């Protein structure tokens, strides 16, 4: 269901909104450069905040737009407050990445990506799926993946970059039909 469809019918429950938006909101937070280990924590905060404000949510605002506003604020506060090294640079990077959201592929921001990703994933060659499995299922660093595949860490990182770029194009084409 798209954003505008959400507001056209009867108001959705909190659970329904979460079910329909959580994947995109989590990816939205990741798109601001938040570390992988922190994305879901921040995303949980977003939905808890939505829960608190649920009765005050304006009826004419699409829930996902409201959620992205909350996510944006929480992310910027997170970067400003974190004691991690380079927090000012991270905050600046987050603002830049957030600013180009509208220029990114429309399908990644608005449409049901997960289903399209499942289809595109199955089309990948075995070698690519193996690298993705090592990276995302086993959570291995590039150096270790390189060792297992008799390659170099930089070559693995380049390969991952190309696989993701290919998946992005496949998803966009799939959702455009």
């Amino acid at each position, binding site marked *: 269901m798209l954003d505008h469809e959400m507001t056209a019918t009867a108001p959705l429950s909190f659970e329904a909104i*979460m*079910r329909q938006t959580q*994947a995109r909101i*989590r*990816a939205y*937070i*990741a*798109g*601001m*450069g*938040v*570390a*992988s280990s922190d*994305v*879901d*924590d921040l*995303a*949980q*905060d977003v*939905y*808890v905040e939505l*829960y*608190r404000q649920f009765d005050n949510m304006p009826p004419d605002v699409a829930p996902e737009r409201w959620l992205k506003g909350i996510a944006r604020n929480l992310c910027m*506060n*997170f970067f400003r*407050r974190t004691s*991690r*090294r*380079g927090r000012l*640079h*991270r905050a*600046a*990077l987050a603002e*830049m*990445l957030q*600013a*180009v*959201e509208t220029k*990114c*592929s429309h399908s*990644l921001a608005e449409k049901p*990506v*997960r289903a399209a*990703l499942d289809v595109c*994933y199955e089309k990948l060659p075995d070698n690519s799926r193996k690298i993705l499995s090592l*990276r*995302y*299922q086993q*959570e291995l*660093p*590039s150096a270790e993946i390189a060792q297992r595949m008799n390659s170099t860490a*930089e070559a693995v*990182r380049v390969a*991952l*970059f190309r696989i*993701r*770029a290919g*998946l*992005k194009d496949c*998803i966009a084409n799939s959702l455009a039909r």
Partner: protein
Amino acid sequence: MSADSLIHRFLEDRDSLADEELLALVEAVGTDADLAVRLREQLVVDDYLAQKLSVDRRQFEAQVAQRIRDLQAGDAAMAAQVNEVRTLVLDDFQRRIARHARWRRLRNLALLATSLLVMVAVGVTLNQWKLATTGITTLAALEGEVTVTRRGSQVAIEPGLPLRADDRLDTRAGASLVLRYEDGTEVQLAGGSQAVVGVDSVTQGKRVELNLGKLAASIRPQAQGRAMIFATPQAEALVLGTEIILEANSEETRLEVTAGRVQLVRARDAQAVFVNAEQLGLASREALQVQPIAWPVHHEGLTFLFDGARGTTAARSAATGVLREIDLHPRGEVPHDSAGAMHFIGKGAFTADAANADLLAALKQSGEFTLELCLESSLAEQFGPARVISFGENEQQEEFAVGQDKTNWVLRLQPTQNNKTQENVAPSFRSLGPATPGVVQHLVVAYRAGELTAWIDGRRVLEDRTVQGNFSEWQPRHLLFGDIHSGNRAWLGKLAAAAIYNRVLTPEQIAKHADRFRQRAKESSK
């Protein structure tokens, strides 16, 4: 390194880039919109892949549901407590009624109970009126610019002023005040702070809201169920009897417990942790955690503190007893290194004149002394002796000093004997142990009449039970780091931290400080 390479590494691990690499990435992304778009798309697809393939990422909705249940449980617990009290009172009343068969006695009992309830209600109201109009605590001491605001108007203040519920206290930078309760509980409010005193509406226990700044408190044992509550924007600390240091700003609350045990409750979700003695509790929107207190662990008798890593210099006010922030003033060229340590390159020193009078008063009053230094010599052989720290005027008028003479750390200490001063006859320096250039060393000197000890890196290097005297005839001097006041005794090295106590730390406390400082040095070198 190319922008592509930085992006590839950033995508693999957002924490993998050094500061300068992050800056380079920011500059590259900032000047190339296409690059920014590609990076964002990569980050988004990366997360979708992690959501699909990573086992840890599959329970998101269940985790949110649990957070909301916890939130609801926190609200429900509060309502349940109120209901429980109400139910207990009603049940008790109804049991009394059921025991009496005769209507007349029942009626008389009901009348009596009603009268008692009325009396209690009147008593509670009177008590609250009394709290509102008379004092719940007293402004025992103050120093510097302090204001008390009552119902929107400032009150004329002086030591001994009774404070009422909802009185707001503001201290400017460098100011301090002390509150004292009837039971002997004391709260010290540091400069740059804002607090409101009151009484908890549920338990009638003492309550202090620290909206901003720092306080230290010594809380006498409180009755069960009437913990003293310290509330900040992020959390509440419930204290039954202990010593704490509480610091709050708009983002984070820090609670140090020096004795006893305190429950720290985060305001936004009612999650709680126990903070035990020598532990630090941290509460913010993202975190609620407990960790060991970093150096210095012990604050009792702490009269002067320089902590380069935290950027803190403080001296305890003789008037209020509050450890207040002061400024160090450079004399000449004295940079700080990247870790905040004073870095002496032979061209200057730091003065701490704001501490002179309070330090002298504290040491004269107690007659005891512990000096703790975390220092690193830059040169194997130095002469003078070159002063690391000096409380004096010149070579002949110096109450105490630690320096480096050739390859050794040396101490000068001049206690007063038989109330006689020995002007212009300065005691000689005594050797403490080797100064190791390029290595951070932890050096402690402790003195009371009949006992002078020194420790390097937790190991005792000096014990002298023949030294006698107190500090009663010590004169106002200048506290300097890196030289003596009259000059020409410059030391080359770094001073990461310094602490002066007006009591003798125990060997166990000294060992703990050495260990904590060693841990901190190890962590900061990573």
